[in-house]
Structure formats: C-alpha cells, structure tokens
C-alpha cells in the first residue's frame, strides 16, 4: 500500500497548490483571450484532449489494452450529437439527453467490439480496434446513399450548441458582471468535465476494480487463478473508455457546430494514444501533461515557425504543417528513447520497466 499511499497524497496536495492551480485554470481563458479567441479555442481543445486521453488511459494505462481505434467512439458520440441536434433531420434534442445517449451508444459499440476480441491476445485487439476505427470513419463517409444519414464527406453543419435554458454556450454573454465569449464559456464547461474524468480515474485506480486491472497487467494467469473474470474486467475498462470517448465526441460536435468524417482519422487515434504514452501511461498528471503538450506544441509551432522563418531566411522554406508532423514524430522518438516510461511516469510504471530491463 506504499504505492497507494503515495497516490492518495498526490490527490490531496496542500491547499496552496490547489489554490494556485485554480487561479491558473481561471485565468487561462482570459489570458489566452488577449491573443484572440483562436487561442481560447486551442485551450479548449487541449482540455478536450485531456478528457479523451484520460478516457483512453483507463483502457491503455490501467487495463493494459492497446486500443488503436479509440477515435471510433469519439466519432459515435459526435455523430449522435450531430444527428439529434441539427437541421439535418430537423431534430433538436437537448444536450442532457444526447450526451448520455452518445456515451451509452459508444459504450455499446465498445462492448460489441470488445466481447469477442478481449479473450484474444493483446496484438489482435490492436488490429481489430484499428480496423474498427477505420470502418466507422468510412461508414460516416458513405452513409449518404441510398438514404442520406450522415451527409457523407460534407459532414453535418449548424449543429446546436449546448444550451441550458436561455444560456447558450456559443454566444458571448455576461455572468456575474464578467463578459465571456462563447469559447470561454465552453472552456469552463470543459474544465468541469475534465475534473470529473480525473476524479473517476483517481478513484478507479485505488479500488477493487483498479487492483484487478493492475493484477491482470502483471500476470493474467495468476489473476485468473485468484478468481478474477479477466474478460469481463477488461471489457469493463474498454466500455468505460468508450463511454468517455462518446461524451467527448458530443461536446466536440456542439463546440464546433460541425462534424465530418475527416476529424476521425487513424491519425487522431494515434495522437490520443501518443498523449497517454508520451505523458506516462497510467499516471494522471503525466497523461494531462501529454495531452496539453501535444495539443499546444503544434499550435505554437504553427504560429511561431512562420514568422521565425521569415525573420531568418526572409521567406518561407518549410511549410509549417509538414514541419509539425516532423517535430511531432521526432518528439515521440526522443521521449521513447530517453524516457521510455513517459515524460512524467508513475513510480509504478518505472518499476515495471526496470524489471523488463533487468
């Protein structure tokens, strides 16, 4: 329980840390807003990815299952929201109906996909999920004929924002004398959601279920002999991860007002997985760091590299978009080479890696 003890201490930092963190979280949207609403949107995406990455962390970090198609559940959530709250079908259900529905549907897909594959070896799961991710995207792309369900590659537009009574998250408004832009409102909503998923992650880790996930990761045969129904327990992790993906998808659709299959490519799955692995699998602060870095860094590059090139060479030499992928790849290789347990790993993972190195 030494490990557990340390973990729970991290959960109840001294008040100073909590205050500081709250202050930073409160200030971010206003500081970012000084540079334009685009920066607030970037902050929003960073938090959305924190949410997604922590959802995937349950699957990959806790249960040790390699899921390469996580974005499929994100897509299910996003399209559920888009179809039930847009002029496309003329249906406009409130968000508190659709978000849980999207989570439920994503969960159902998770169970349908996981049940037959989770008793196979880990590598099969990776392949099957990878395939599933692509299937979902291709379906979204082609379900516009003979009956137009998803509107194909054009995607669905004019999706309703999240609205509570008269309070719409897409328009700017004044609360307690402070004027908030649409993106700033979403920021606070996303922070609340992210805190929620953090609590879920922390509490699961130190529970009967969390222990069985760890036991399965350590030695599946021994875990079975201890009476753990490993398939069900893995399925639980998989379905939970999927549900969080579904919720994130719904919020994404509402925030963007637009979804198309393009947003749910394999690259997206890999990016989210990279956030988990790069930050430190199974370690909540690490995963958060990974998500923030991998969302923020490319944007900083995009805005930083162009002026830099002009200043140094007088013209553009490398297109920032391609440089982005290059830096992204390089960062991954370097981290894996020099910090294989991630940038901010748990003591747990460090120990596991030390063992394989012996």
């Amino acid at each position, binding site marked *: *329980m*030494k*490990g*557990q003890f340390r973990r729970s201490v991290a959960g109840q930092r001294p008040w100073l840390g909590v205050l500081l963190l709250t202050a930073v979280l409160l200030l971010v949207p206003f500081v970012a807003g000084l540079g334009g609403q685009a920066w607030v949107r970037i902050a929003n995406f960073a938090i959305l990815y924190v949410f997604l990455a922590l959802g995937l962390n349950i699957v990959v970090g806790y249960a040790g299952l390699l899921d390469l198609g996580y974005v499929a559940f994100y897509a299910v959530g996003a399209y559920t929201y888009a179809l039930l709250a847009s002029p496309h079908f003329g249906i406009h259900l409130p968000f508190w109906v659709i978000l849980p529905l999207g989570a439920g549907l994503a969960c159902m897909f998770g169970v349908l996909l996981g049940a037959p594959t989770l008793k196979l070896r880990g590598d099969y799961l990776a392949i099957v999920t990878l395939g599933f991710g692509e299937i979902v995207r291709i379906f979204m792309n082609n379900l516009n004929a003979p009956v137009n369900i998803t509107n194909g590659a054009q995607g669905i537009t004019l999706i309703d924002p999240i609205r509570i009574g008269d309070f719409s998250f897409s328009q700017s408004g004044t609360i307690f004398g402070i004027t908030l832009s649409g993106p700033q409102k979403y920021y606070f909503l996303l922070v609340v959601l992210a805190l929620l998923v953090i*609590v*879920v992650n922390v*509490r*699961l880790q130190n*529970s*009967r*279920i*969390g*222990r*069985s996930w*760890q*036991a399965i990761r*350590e*030695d599946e*045969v*021994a*875990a*079975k*002999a*201890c*009476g*753990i*129904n*490993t398939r069900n327990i893995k399925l*639980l992790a998989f379905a*939970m991860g999927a549900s969080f993906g579904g919720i994130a998808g719904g919020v994404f659709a509402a925030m963007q007002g637009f979804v198309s299959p393009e947003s749910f490519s394999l690259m997206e799955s890999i990016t989210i997985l990279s956030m988990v692995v790069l930050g430190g699998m199974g370690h909540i602060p690490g995963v958060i760091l990974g998500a923030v870095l991998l969302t923020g860094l490319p944007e900083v590059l995009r805005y930083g590299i162009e002026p830099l090139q002009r200043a140094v060479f007088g013209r553009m030499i490398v297109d920032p978009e391609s440089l982005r992928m290059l830096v992204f790849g390089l960062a991954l290789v370097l981290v894996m080479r020099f910090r294989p347990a991630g940038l901010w790993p748990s003591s*747990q993972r460090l*120990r*596991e890696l030390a*063992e394989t190195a012996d």
Partner: protein
Amino acid sequence: MSEQPLLLEAHEVAKHFGGVKALQDVSLTIRRGEIYGLIGPNGAGKTTFFNCLTGLYKNESGHFVFDGVRLEADAPHKAAAVGIARTFQNIRLFGNMTAIENVMVGRHLRTRAGVLGAITRNAATRAEEAAITRRAEELLHYVGIHERAHDYAKHLSYGDQRRLEIARALATEPKLLALDEPAAGMNGTETEALRVLVEGICRDGVTVLLIEHDVKLVMGLCRRVAVFDYGEKICEDVPAVVQKDPRVIEAYLGGSVA
C-alpha cells in the same frame, strides 16, 4: 476414525500434449480435512493435474467432482469461485504490487464493489475496502510475513514469496488449497516453518493437496500420498506403504535422479 466426506474426485482424467501423454486416465479421491500428497519424478504430470483441476488446461476426457458437484472447469476463475485455490510451481505473484495488495487481489472473488461504488466511494464501498484491507493484514500475519506488508512482492525473499502466494490463495476462501512444490528452493528451517504453516491451514479446515519433491516433508505431513509416473497414477496409500512400494522405487530409480 470416522471417514470424512469426499471433497474432490478425479474420474479418469486424461490430457496430452501432442504425443506426450501428460495424464492418462488418472482417478483419485481426496477427503475433506486431509493433507493429500502428490509425488512423482520430473515430468510425471503433477502440475498438469493441477492445471486441469483449476481450469487452466482443458482435459481431453474424464472429469472432476468437487464437493459433490461436477466441475465445469472451463475457466480458472470459476474453479476459484467454487473453492479451489492454488499456488504455482514457478511463483506467480504480482511483482510490482505490495505484499498486502497481492492478498487484497485475492479478496476480489468474495467482494462486490463495482465501478459505481469505486467512483462514488459510498459507505458500503468504503466499508468493504476496509474489510478487504483488514482481512489481508490478518492473512499476512497468519503466514508470518506481516512486517513485509508494504514491500513490493518482487523484493521479498524466495521463502516469503512462497508464503505470500499461500496468503493470496487463502484470501479466496478456498475449501481446497493446492500447493505446487511450496518447499522448492527452501532451506531446512524454512521448510520446517512451512510444514507448521500447512498443518495449521489444515487444522483450520482447509483441505490441502500438496505436490512436493521433498520426501521427508511429504511423509511427515500427508495422510495419503499418490505417486504419478509418466502421467499414470501408479500407487496411492499411506506414506509408510508408498515408500516401500516396488513400483515407486522403480519409478524414482529408473527416472532422473530427482
């Protein structure tokens, strides 16, 4: 002496790996409350018998009856659920978990808390968690390694790891505890302590099935002993008789010098 009821019956259990007949129609019965020994030269099929019993392997023919009910041993967790716990010949602990966490995993089967309980941390879940911890502490005391409760399992000494595995198995509240060579690699003092522990376990009402190469230990502990050779049960009797059986002497002398 009144005969105790049967706890385990193996009926003509057979298992082969390709051409290797690891078990050939093995039948045996174990009574409640006894310590039953299983010996035999290397490769005789002892571990395979455990693996079939606990659902890790599927036997080609034959079946087990446990506590009067036929075992559908198609999954190890079901065997554990009906009350068969085991240890492994080549120790299988959760190395990066602490000793007490290992035992707490053993409580999984007899506890209920699910995802909702874990997330809400309601009173029932907290009470259950406290009970799990308490029981795990008791079991560590019971096997005598409570000072090591917060050490990682992989950092324990060999003998302590064997004890921890026993504690984890006991946490599942078994009726039958199957030990696969628990004294392997132990020195004389450790083996003696193990003997005392196993006797205690039996006295506390758990039937023990013991695979062991240490003849002295088996003869001292077990009420009855079965001898396997090339997948067959060649002999089954009280230790004194088994020791003098010509087939057993032949099996041990003819086989490798174990």
